[in-house]
């Protein structure tokens, strides 16, 4: 024994043999191949879900799992996330656009066998509006009569809220003013029904920490059931035989890997552990596009990357300065040379073709005109331009983008802009308290309608954070756009967006894209701009 240990060469040799033995020899079946055989889709989910309570959770990684476990009145259509029948098999809208009557299918069941009824929706929506639950997306219910008042605790009688169960299978929603994007909003998980009796079994109805969503406890009404959930390891859902459309669900199970690191997920994809990851690392998108285009599935999202201007601080209180800054950068170069994940330049706030709306007001890149504007504002050739800074948070490509813009502004306007990098929560604190000059920001639509973007800049809105406000803009977005007449509504959006692009409290830069890696074995996976998937239409087919 002693002899053996004094010869480390031998020890190393034996260790290597042991490794080789442990690893087995030759090529083996990958997890993706095994998944194809077993009908198990393996997905890189991008993050550990914070939770699976559809009325509490707000993020994408959570949504991607909850959509398998629950089903709302409407479902997102695979191609474009537009609302199609879910638990409701059809609905009527009153001529004034204020009353929606949903007719529920009679064969919808909870996973414990109970029927899904109008009462379930009534009680679930009551929970969303309970003030103590603190549901972040309760605002989506505010078009409903008295919903806001109830949520803010101004009224306490839920009967006064515009939700009614007319009978077991008829659910009625009454709005205070027409909201044509109501159905589009109802695709969101806040509108899913939840099993009230089960929730009460494990805690209070309005306790966001209620642990009813654990495996073995969670009762759902979606196409899949929660089987396993190990934190930071995996979530496994299996086909729900009681789902009303179970016979059309082709996957047997879905395995969600919560890997957060894009590089790790990409390596897992390459070694055959995942059918698809959440997003390829930006540095590798060009490689896949050139050499393995059949694996890359990239498409624009309803999500804009932009800079906020703090209009309360000079020199940014002068709109000519804001316009000059916005007109003197090269967005195409930012997308292609810096961000590099297939982003598309954008010259207005709302991405093109958002529910059929494309803004006509488009900002022009014109450095000469920008210099002229800056001179008119009192800074000819950048002279006497005060020192201001760009605030951005740590992570992603924010720093190189800010550096590129800094250089473009120096070159085109001859002004010096400083950079200020802050950790995520510090940055959020700074922007919320308007402690910045120019700040990086991003906005993804909650639902497929331009209102999801344009409501951003309403005077005093929580997400405005620029100090900018315009009464005409508010009127267009909050009043005029609430009409059943789509032409009039889109006209209001056009006018509002034109005001925004003239006043320029924000400087749009690009539209995010989702460069997803996906093996061709996955069939009928339809990319869509909200990036939400109804996995029940997907199937797996091993490649020859």
């Amino acid at each position, binding site marked *: 024994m002693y002899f053996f240990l*004094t010869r480390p060469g031998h*020890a190393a040799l034996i260790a290597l043999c042991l490794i080789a033995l442990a690893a087995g020899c030759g090529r083996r079946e990958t997890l993706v191949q095994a998944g194809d055989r077993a009908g198990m889709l393996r997905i890189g989910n991008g993050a550990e879900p*914070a939770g699976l309570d559809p009325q509490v959770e707000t993020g994408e990684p959570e949504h991607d799992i909850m959509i398998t476990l629950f089903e709302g009145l409407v479902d997102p259509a695979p191609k474009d996330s537009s609302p199609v029948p879910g638990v409701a098999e059809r609905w009527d809208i009153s001529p004034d656009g204020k009353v929606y009557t949903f007719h529920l299918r009679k064969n919808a069941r909870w996973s414990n066998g109970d029927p899904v009824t109008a009462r379930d929706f009534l009680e679930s929506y009551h929970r969303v509006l309970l003030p103590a639950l603190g549901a972040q997306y309760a605002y989506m219910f505010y078009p409903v009569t008295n919903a806001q008042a109830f949520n803010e605790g101004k009224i306490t009688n839920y009967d006064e809220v515009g939700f009614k169960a007319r009978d077991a299978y008829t659910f009625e929603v009454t709005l205070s003013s027409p909201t044509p994007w109501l159905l589009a909003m109802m695709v969101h998980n806040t509108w899913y029904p939840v099993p009230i009796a089960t929730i009460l079994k494990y805690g209070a109805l309005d306790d966001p920490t209620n642990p009813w969503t654990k495996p073995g406890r969670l009762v759902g009404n979606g196409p899949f059931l929660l089987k396993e959930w190990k934190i*930071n390891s995996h979530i496994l859902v299996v086909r729900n035989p009681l789902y009303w459309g179970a016979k059309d669900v082709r996957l047997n199970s879905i395995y969600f890997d919560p890997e957060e690191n894009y590089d790790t997920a990409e390596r*897992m994809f390459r*070694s055959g552990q995942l059918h698809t990851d959440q997003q390829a690392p930006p540095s590798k998108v060009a490689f896949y596009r050139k050499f393995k285009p059949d694996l890359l599935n990239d498409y624009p999202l309803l999500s804009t990357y932009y800079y906020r201007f703090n209009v309360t601080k000079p020199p940014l209180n002068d709109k000519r300065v804001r316009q000059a800054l916005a007109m003197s950068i090269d967005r195409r170069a930012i997308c292609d040379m810096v961000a590099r994940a297939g982003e598309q330049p954008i010259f207005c706030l709302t991405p093109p073709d958002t529910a059929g709306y494309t803004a006509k007001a488009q900002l022009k890149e014109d450095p000469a005109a920008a210099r002229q504007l800056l001179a008119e504002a009192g800074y000819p050739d950048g002279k006497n331009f005060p020192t201001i800074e760009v605030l951005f948070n740590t992570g992603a490509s924010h720093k190189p983008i800010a550096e590129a813009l800094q250089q473009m502004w120096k070159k085109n306007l001859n002004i010096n802009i400083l950079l200020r990098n802050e*950790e995520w929560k510090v940055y*959020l*604190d700074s922007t919320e308290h308007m402690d910045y000059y120019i700040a990086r920001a991003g906005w993804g639509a909650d639902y497929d309608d331009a209102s999801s973007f344009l409501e951003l800049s309403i005077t005093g809105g*929580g997400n405005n954070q620029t100090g900018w406000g315009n009464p005409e803009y508010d009127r267009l977005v909050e009043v005029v756009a609430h009409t059943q007449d789509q032409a009039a509504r889109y006209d209001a959006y056009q006018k509002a967006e034109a005001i925004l692009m003239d006043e320029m409290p924000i400087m749009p830069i690009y539209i995010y894209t989702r460069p997803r890696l996906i093996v061709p074995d996955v069939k009928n996976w339809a990319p869509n701009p909200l990036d939400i998937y109804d996995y029940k239409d997907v199937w797996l087919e091993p490649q020859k």
Partner: protein
Amino acid sequence: MFRFVARRLLETIPVMFIIATATFFMMRLAPGGPFDSEKNIPPDIKARMAAHYGLDKPLFQQYLLQMKHLLQGNLGPSFKYPSRTVNEIIADAFPASLELGAEALLVALVLGLAAGLTASLKQNSALDHLPMSLAMIGICVPTFVMGPLLISAFALHLDWFNAAGWFLPRDRVLPALTLGAYYAAYVARLTRGGMLEILHQDYIRTARAKGAGGARVLFKHALRGGILPVVSFLGPAVAGLLTGSFVVETIFGVPGLGRFFVTSAFNRDYFMVMGSVLFYALFVIVLNLVVDVVMVWLDPKLRFE
């Protein structure tokens, strides 16, 4: 010995108290809060969420309340993962970190001791220079370079292992090597240094003169003193290994505690930060105590101090 251990254990109480207090106030001094997010939450909803977790109370009252809960062993809920308590998260995540750490420790000891012993016995030969150069590389190459390199070679090209994950026994090999290599390098250098010092002592020459064989001299007489520097290094090293490495866990998708330790601070998940800091602190204290006891056992000189 008993008095020594008892005294050290008693000292733990004020140390933990100071750590808890410092953590509490440092966390609260950091700008931003647990409920800040890219999509701004309406102020009244934020206030309700804060009230739910008792964050609306005066700071000192919150401090007293948290201290009370800590004394009861209740680490509180996680803000980031509301359906889980911090106790549950630590209980779920720690086993993976513990296992990874134990395996990495094994790698560190086996490789490090073998290389260090060889180098000390064959001083200034190729068998000294080669392992010591490798050790230097091991110390210099960070885990975030080592990990992807190993994955690239053994998982993506040779296809012996999965690129990441923590399910099969073979999933342990690459993370344990990556995490262990750095410590192995230290162990090798410390072993070599310690052994060289001991091997030149008079009592070793005496043992040789009395006719003891090479292996007997090495293992019976020299090793015990020679690895003392390694043992003192192992105390904090083992604590670091066992409570998880953020980098290695991220690269290899290991569902361990190391990731929570780091991300909870970014998330301002106050209770999670407190829980993981105290857990880590307790670990370091206990392991340092174990090391001291082992040192006393190994080194008779210390018994008189």
